[in-house]
């Protein structure tokens, strides 16, 4: 659509700009400010340059949780994207069943994150939880509170439960936008289900899948509440992710300088990965056409 050049449109954007600037720029500048100073109290602050950044980058705590974070986000994406597409393909397309499955699928998305943690805590505990009880009943030793592998698997399963619906609903709405004529043409050509999926459905889903991958990457990278409630980051540090390490640093130990430097690095990683993903996708797009 061709738009009209009109700089007075800024007046319409101004409220958003002021509001977001108030709650984004001021805090962000505060963080930048802290990250280059050593603060003893209100009157004693020294400029230390990039020292905190150097410290933080060499800190094994950060390196470990960064590695865990990437593994976590990677495995979560690897499961949720294909599963979400599959669920979307299986969803009924019309009638009461369609509304019902929409509502059912959306339920996990609307549960407060700490309640999600609580639900899985209750569900997966070996003594009172259905899942833990059933797995132990089958003769497999399972306890997410003491075994690092079990804890890891439980946290990933929880995230799959929590967020696959988002991908499924995104894809579902993408699928609804494909005109019937496409399917009829495919029928005339006697295309197999796989061919229909590969040549008609998947290309049409690309737009929503980009949104889905981006949202899931960003949110899984910021995950805090659910593992905090479920495992408290343990056993040991096996499920301590970046946000939790950061919160411990900033509020638990009050290391404001390093925590601020850590924050900046954290934010930059999210921005960088999102930007890389976005440009790669749009570059691929250009090469094709």
């Amino acid at each position: 659509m061709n738009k009209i050049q009109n700089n007075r449109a800024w007046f319409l954007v101004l409220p958003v700009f002021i509001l977001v600037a108030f709650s984004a720029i001021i805090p962000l500048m505060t963080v930048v400010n802290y990250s280059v100073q050593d603060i003893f109290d209100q009157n004693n602050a020294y400029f230390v340059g990039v020292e905190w950044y150097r410290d933080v980058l060499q800190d094994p705590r950060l390196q470990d949780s960064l590695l865990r974070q990437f593994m976590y986000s990677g495995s979560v994406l690897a499961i949720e994207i294909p599963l979400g597409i599959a669920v979307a393909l299986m969803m009924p397309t019309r009638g009461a069943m369609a509304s019902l499955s929409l509502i059912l699928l959306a339920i996990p998305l609307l549960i407060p994150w700490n309640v999600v943690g609580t639900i899985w805590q209750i569900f997966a505990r070996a003594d009172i939880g259905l899942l833990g009880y059933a797995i132990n009943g089958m003769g497999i030793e399972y306890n997410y509170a003491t075994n690092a592998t079990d804890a890891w698997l439980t946290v990933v399963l929880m995230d799959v439960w929590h967020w696959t619906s988002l991908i499924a609903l995104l894809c579902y709405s993408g699928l609804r936008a494909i005109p019937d004529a496409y399917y009829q043409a495919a029928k005339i050509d006697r295309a197999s289900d796989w061919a229909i999926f590969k040549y008609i459905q998947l290309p049409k889903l690309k737009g929503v899948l980009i949104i889905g991958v981006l949202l899931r990457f960003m949110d899984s990278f910021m995950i805090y509440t659910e593992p905090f409630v479920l495992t408290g980051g343990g056993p040991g540090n096996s499920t301590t992710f970046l946000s939790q390490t950061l919160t411990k640093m900033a509020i638990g130990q009050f290391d404001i300088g390093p925590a601020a430097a850590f924050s900046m690095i954290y934010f930059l990683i999210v921005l960088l990965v999102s930007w890389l993903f976005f440009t790669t996708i749009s570059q691929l797009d250009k090469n094709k056409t």
Partner: protein
Amino acid sequence: MSRKKNIGITAYSIFVLLPVYWLINMSFKSNEEILGTFSLWPQQFTFANYQVIFTDPSWYNGYFNSITYVVLNSIITLLVALPAAYAFSRYKFIGDKHLFFWLLTNRMAPPAVFLLPFFQLYSSIGLFDTHIAVALAHCLFSVPLAVWILEGFMSSVPREIDETAYIDGYSFPRFFIRIFLPLISSGIGVTVFFSFMFSWVELLLARTLTSVNAKPIAAIMTRTIGADGIDWGVLSAAGVLTIIPGILVIYFVRNHVAKGFALGRV
């Protein structure tokens, strides 16, 4: 084929519902029963856990606090995002693309990064422990998303409608409210759904910015962990009650959700 599909979707629905069912199951049991016996449904059905919540103001006020800031957040978000989305969908202006991208980067900021500065900022202007502080903090995430969604919906309305309205003598505010808003009502529904969703489920910022008067229900739930272990029954009941508002909201927007989840872009 369609049989296979039905089995698949049923299996997935069970996977979604089972943990929720377990929570509901627990909420109707007494603590002795939860810890003593293992059963798939409550043997001695009890409302005692819900009674604890409905009779103790420090419990049920948590729900009012949460709902208050979520509603405030939705209202503020809509009020500022509507004109902005209109500007982005209809006009070119200096820095429009940069501004749009900058807005979206705020959606990418980890809340943990803003924890400390937010605390200091809202304390210094005297808004600490108020509903409006939490609502404003959540705007950081809800406003960019709202602008994005609304812009998609607005772009699908042909601009001839705007022009016809001006020729008919409508002023901008009158056109916007009387003609334009009804056209994108499903977009508004979806926007409210998303701002509700992200504000209702967020805990980290809400907990940090409140202490007593505006404490959200999600933070109050941590009280159930006492000296003699966790009060599983009350915890479950409180959890069940936090799910209900979400189900109500999704029920109201269920017909728009298919279009809305694609952010109006399909």
